[in-house]
């Protein structure tokens, strides 16, 4: 969609001005990103300088087994928001949901970008990759997702896995995983991969990470490949209901006294303590609110396998499997075996009694002392 601009190899700074994005908007974008990422404030200026010197970064966006929610999240607004400005900083050479071209033309655009920016483009992936039965469960233009990922990843500079599906397998990978879905990192092993999980991820997190990659390179990542700036703290670490948790004051339902008083949502299933994301600070819909603020516990959507961690409404301290009946079953089985062995024992005992003879001192080992 922005191919002509790339051809001019113009710097971003120049091209933005002619597109009506003022230098000040640019700087404002950078201060907002720097603030959200907890970068030193002076980094905003450096980021703006670097961005304006850069040429437009070629980006190929592949969507696999997904719901398009991630794309929705970043583009959701009909007004230009600051976050969506990121699209002016990159050249989105292929995104089959967003691009106007279709069919052969679309695939050509991808191949061309791949050739022209070999080794320099960023690959963004949303959606998991089904690998069972040769990957037949999801294809685009007759190419399986698996093939396409391997092919495009080969010449990419770096990969950004957007959303929990691409990062960790997400919903498609949930039990029983009928399509054999896996994460990008299960397939591509030799490229830097940044995971931006979330179902969907927070827009400013996607924007911030992309801006960081464009300017300062790959940000510091945690052990699950997530940028520390956004995923370093758990929801619980930053939760405003934390004082209630610490005191042990919990809502027991969604409309009881505790819920009305804004108490902690642990007992109604909040997974905030084990979930790392920026919702509690950055919030959603331009800082309006986030799930816990609107009275619902965190479901843990930015963690691997969150679908398989049991009910969203059962406390973290309980089991994730439905154990109703298990304990009673074990009790019954224990009782049965216990009684059986009791019968066996009493049998042995009565036999022993039948054979009972008075004990002499010799029997007790007091031989000839």
């Amino acid at each position, binding site marked *: 969609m922005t191919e002509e601009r790339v051809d001019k190899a113009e710097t971003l*700074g120049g091209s933005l001005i002619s597109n009506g994005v003022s230098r000040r908007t640019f700087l404002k974008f950078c201060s907002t990103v720097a603030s959200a990422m*907890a970068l030193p*404030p002076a980094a905003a200026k450096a980021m703006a300088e670097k961005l304006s010197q850069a040429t437009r970064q070629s980006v190929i966006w592949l969507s696999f087994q997904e719901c398009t929610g991630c794309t929705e999240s970043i583009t959701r607004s009909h007004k230009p*928001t600051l976050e969506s400005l990121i699209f002016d900083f990159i050249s989105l050479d292929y995104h089959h949901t967003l691009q106007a071209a279709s069919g052969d033309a679309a695939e050509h655009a991808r191949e061309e970008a791949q050739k022209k920016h070999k080794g320099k483009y960023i690959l963004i992936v949303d959606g998991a990759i089904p690998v069972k039965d040769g990957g037949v469960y999801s294809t685009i233009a007759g190419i399986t997702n698996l093939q396409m990922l391997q092919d495009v990843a080969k010449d990419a500079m770096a990969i950004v896995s957007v959303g929990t599906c691409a990062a960790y397998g997400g919903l498609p990978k949930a039990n029983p995983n009928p399509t054999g879905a896996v994460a990008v990192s299960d397939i591509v092993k030799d490229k830097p991969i940044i995971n931006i999980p979330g179902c969907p991820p927070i827009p400013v997190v996607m924007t911030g990470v992309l801006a960081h990659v464009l300017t300062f390179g790959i940000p510091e990542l945690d052990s699950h490949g997530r940028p520390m700036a956004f995923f370093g703290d758990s929801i619980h670490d930053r939760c405003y209901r934390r004082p209630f948790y610490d005191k042990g004051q919990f809502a027991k339902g969604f409309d009881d006294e505790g819920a009305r008083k804004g108490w902690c949502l642990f007992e109604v299933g909040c997974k905030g303590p084990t979930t790392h994301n920026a919702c509690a600070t950055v919030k959603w819909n331009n800082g309006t609110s986030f799930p816990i603020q609107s009275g619902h516990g965190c479901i843990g959507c930015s963690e691997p396998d969150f679908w398989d961690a049991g009910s969203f409404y059962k406390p973290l301290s309980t089991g994730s499997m439905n154990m109703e009946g298990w304990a009673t079953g074990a009790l019954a089985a224990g009782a049965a075996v216990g009684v059986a062995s009791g019968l066996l024992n009493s049998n042995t005992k009565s036999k022993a009694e039948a054979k009972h003879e008075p004990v002499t001192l010799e029997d007790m080992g007091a031989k000839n002392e």
Partner: protein
Amino acid sequence: MNLIDIPVKAMETPTGMASALLAELNDHLHNLLKKGETHVIDLLSLPLNEADINELADLLGVGEVKATIKSIGSSSIRETAYSGIWWITHYGDDEKVLSELIEVTQVPEILVTHMDEVRHSAQVMASSLAGQEKVI
């Protein structure tokens, strides 16, 4: 009713951060004066509550410059009563605060017209002059 029954309400009382910040700003003013070093403080990254921010605003006072930038959402740039200390608030398109900064500088970065833009406007000016000549 015992102690545990009393629900906690986040009380917005100043934490004393404002005066600590003032001391820091004092250092930065001296740096600007002696070495020409500018500095930026990101208020959103500090553990300040609303009362702290109000207290800080009161302590810094209102100076003589107030500028508004209209880009995507507006931005307000105000010099405080302490010359060289500027208070900058960026709003999103829905009037939500995106970032809130204090800059210690002669002119805040965002007010200075960038040379790229000067170049661009020179071009536009030239072409509109050329257009006028044709008309005449």
